């Protein structure tokens, strides 16, 4: 693996659009070419080197490339967008659309991520150690295809409408979720270890998708029906996998906890499941 280091020169109020910060874009170029890649600030077109000190090595292929953004970059949008291999580590906060449409590889944000992180994600793993803001892993306006694959693990809490129009893939939230998580969900898995916010799974059709809440729920919609309290075997699989492959240790605490099963959203004739761990 070859490592390229980008140090943000300053945090600006006007955001910088830098979809070029991606192993997929960078690999195979010379360092000089990388420095001259275009980024945009408002209507002004600049180069990567205008905003970052760029050092390190460039790999031949994306899979061998690690990019480290060494510092806070809450103003930098689209980092890792559409990346399909390799690794990107942001050692601080990340701006909007981080990892949106990513298809593979591993993206880690050690701080928090702004809105639309992992939006329309197709594959790979996105870790956000801090909080994620609104519309995490969501669909674009008007689209009914949100996340279609991959996995997002958030260490903190998430904002509104996480996983909207989710089709496949998994979102794990260690902290709390805001309202409308899993809205219009049509497949995929959401596991919340903090407290789940209101209107979870609103308009969800289900299609095999479930939302599991291990840290309590603020309130459920009246259009979710309680079915039973049980310990479905399948959840054990998820919890063990979370602990083993994604280092979500707290998962193991819930292996034997019975779950309350709710089904809905009846308003759309859905059969999505909400599973809530008994305290």
């Amino acid at each position, binding site marked *: 693996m070859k490592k390229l280091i980008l140090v943000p020169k300053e945090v600006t109020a006007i955001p910088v659009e830098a979809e070029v910060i991606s192993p997929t874009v960078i690999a195979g170029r010379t360092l000089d070419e990388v420095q001259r890649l275009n980024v945009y600030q408002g209507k002004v077109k600049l180069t990567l080197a205008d905003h970052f000190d760029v050092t390190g090595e460039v790999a031949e292929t994306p899979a061998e490339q690690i990019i480290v953004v060494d510092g806070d970059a809450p103003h930098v949008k689209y980092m890792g967008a559409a990346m399909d291999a390799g690794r990107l580590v942001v050692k601080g906060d990340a701006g909007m659309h981080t990892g949106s449409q990513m298809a593979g590889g591993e993206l880690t944000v050690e701080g928090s991520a702004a*809105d*639309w992180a992992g939006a329309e994600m197709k594959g790979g793993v996105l870790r956000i150690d801090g909080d994620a*803001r*609104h519309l995490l892993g969501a669909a674009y306006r008007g689209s009914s295809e949100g996340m279609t694959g991959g996995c997002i693990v958030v260490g903190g809490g998430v*904002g509104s*409408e996480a996983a909207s129009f989710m089709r496949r893939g998994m979102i794990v939230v260690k902290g709390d979720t*805001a309202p409308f998580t899993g809205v219009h969900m049509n497949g995929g898995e959401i596991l919340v270890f903090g407290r789940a916010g209101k209107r979870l799974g609103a308009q969800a059709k289900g299609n095999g998708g479930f939302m599991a809440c291990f840290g309590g729920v603020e309130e459920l919609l009246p259009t979710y029906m309680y079915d039973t309290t049980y310990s479905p075997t399948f959840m054990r699989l998820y919890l063990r996998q979370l602990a083993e492959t994604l280092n979500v240790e707290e998962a193991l605490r819930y292996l034997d906890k019975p779950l309350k099963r709710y089904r809905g959203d009846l308003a759309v004739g859905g059969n999505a499941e909400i599973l809530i761990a008994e305290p």
Partner: protein
Amino acid sequence: MSKLKVTLVSGRTAQQGIGLEEGKTSDNYVKSVNHVQLCPEDAAKMKLKEGDAVSVETRHGSVVVNWRPSKELEGGMVFFPYGPWANQVYGYETEGTGTPIFKGIEATVAPTKGKVKSIEELVKSLGGDRK
């Protein structure tokens, strides 16, 4: 003097519409928006008299305004006509939608000795002193 926990609702009123067409600096406009409406029972709880000012506070900010009784309101609900005074107590979080919340906000209302700002003072307090 007691604080009252309320739900704050803002909205349009015909008076405000009529006033703004006269001009935002007109008395009619200012009067139509520099007050809150309370149900008489809530006003009584706070021992408010006609002409008293009240302070309205939310987690986003506070403002001093006049008050008027409204029989249509139930206890615990306060109506604040849209306008520069109401804006002092709203947050700007849009949760990725572009639209802040203007209705159904937790607030407290309390009698105050404070003074209701004029429109000029209000604009100035927001940083607008170019004139």
